[in-house]
């Protein structure tokens, strides 16, 4: 008993130490901050010393100035892009998990669909983008479908991987307790697959803004992608840089949101354990 308790305490201390290591902000925040600021200063100096024209390469201070000036327009365009990205991603999430479950549940569906899914993923999606205008027309629907095409595959693949790699011993255990196939799915397969599904979600979450922007390049007259094209076309490079900056921040934010949802949903998983006892 004492030995057990000692081991448990040791496990708890180890996890706490690991949590503290994770939480230690000094190096992890300061160093990238220093290099980032250094990069911006260098960029500013190059533009000023070489007297580069803003249409070729605007200085960071110039981009910041344009961002302030066009702030509300940028936010409005971000709203369009974010809407397409989030709606497309959520539809892909539902479809992807359902398709993954169907592929896992039925060997026939697996054999019929999975090879084609893999083959279709190999087709460069940007190449088929113009075809969506022919098939669906110009506008938000095309844009959303483009996001779905971009984000669907990682979710399906990771769902299938997660559901198929259920621990056979756990399945035997619940079978010995009289579990029905549905109970096995609900109690063992799905919770066990969540880490893998979240891995797919995080990949797709970063692809969603990319899909939305490319959709706006070819099939929309609104959103940051469209704005970016227009700014480049009219040599308003500082505005183009501002749009790129906003898209990037949005991409990072959506990734962190997915990370947060993962942390709250699977606190038990090895990747999150340090944060439990540290909290």
């Amino acid at each position: 008993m004492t030995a057990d308790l000692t081991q448990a305490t040791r496990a708890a201390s180890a996890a706490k130490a690991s949590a503290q290591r994770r939480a230690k902000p000094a190096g992890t925040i300061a160093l990238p901050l220093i290099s980032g600021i250094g990069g911006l200063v260098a960029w500013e100096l190059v533009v000023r010393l070489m007297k580069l024209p803003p249409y070729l390469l605007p200085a960071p201070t110039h981009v910041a100035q344009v961002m302030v000036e066009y702030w509300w327009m940028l936010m409005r365009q971000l709203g369009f892009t974010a809407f397409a990205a989030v709606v497309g991603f959520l539809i892909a999430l539902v479809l992807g998990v359902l398709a993954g479950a169907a592929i896992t549940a039925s060997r026939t569906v697996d054999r019929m669909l999975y090879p084609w899914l893999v083959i279709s993923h190999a087709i460069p999606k940007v190449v088929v983008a113009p075809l969506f205008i022919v098939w669906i027309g110009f506008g938000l629907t095309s844009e959303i479908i483009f996001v779905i095409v971009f984000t669907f595959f990682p979710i399906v693949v990771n769902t299938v991987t997660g559901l198929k790699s259920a621990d056979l011993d756990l399945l035997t255990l619940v079978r010995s307790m009289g579990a029905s196939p549905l109970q096995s799915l609900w109690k063992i397969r799905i919770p066990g697959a969540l880490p893998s599904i979240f891995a797919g979600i995080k990949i797709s979450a970063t692809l969603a803004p990319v899909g939305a922007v490319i959709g706006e390049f070819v099939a929309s007259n609104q959103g940051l992608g469209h704005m970016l094209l227009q700014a480049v076309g009219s040599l308003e490079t500082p505005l183009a840089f501002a749009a790129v900056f906003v898209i990037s921040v949005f991409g990072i934010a959506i990734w962190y949101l997915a990370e947060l949802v993962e942390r709250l949903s699977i606190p038990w998983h090895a990747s999150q354990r340090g944060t439990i006892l540290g909290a």
Partner: protein
Amino acid sequence: MNAVALSKVEKTYYAGQGDVHALGPVSLAIRAGETLAVVGPSGCGKSTLLRIIAGLDDATGGSVRVADREVTAPIPDVGIVFQRDLLLDWRTVIDNVLLPAELQKRIDRPTAVKRAEALLEELGVAEFAKRYPWELSGGMRQRVAIARAMLCKPAMLFLDEPFSALDALTRDQMNVILQGVQAGQGVTTLLITHSIQEAVFLSDRVVVMSGRPGTVLDDIPVHFPRPRRLSLREGPQFVDIARRIRVHFERAGVLVG
């Protein structure tokens, strides 16, 4: 009355590179309330035997009857503890213990919670009820697995080398703890183990199996009064029984010296 009756049970695995005759024929019975330990060398089919009795695997010959019924599917009134504790990472300790009640719905949740708490208390892990399994040591995890197996007051408890992954000291502790739980429940127990000492200490009868295909070499009654203390293992009668088992392994070449 027999809780389990096996008659000429056999198991052959049909594989591409030739069939493997893993078990049998085995005929034996386990009386209601009895603790039967099965010892044998690795690969002799001990675990297969347990899985066949539990209805988790099909025999390729003979018949298996549990509570006077032919076994054709997983039997309902049994708690099983496997070599791996098989606790679900995503459930807290108490939720792991409650799993069989959720699946079988034989007892309502408030009753199940009360019983789970009592079992965790009895097994000395009540203070970790809200923790996740990864926060526990191997011995504590296996206690939780025992609590889970006992939750629905099963008529039978099957233990498939439950303590083989634990260190010697923890293993001794677990033997004493298990004996206490068994005594409280009066449950018919089938224990599969590699450990001769563990088999003699915990059981009312030890069945010694041969190497593959596993058959019964010896069936030894163990009549020590309960509760048993660990010091029992140093007594001459205990040593005699352990020696009788060991001789079978020495003859088979499993143990030398």
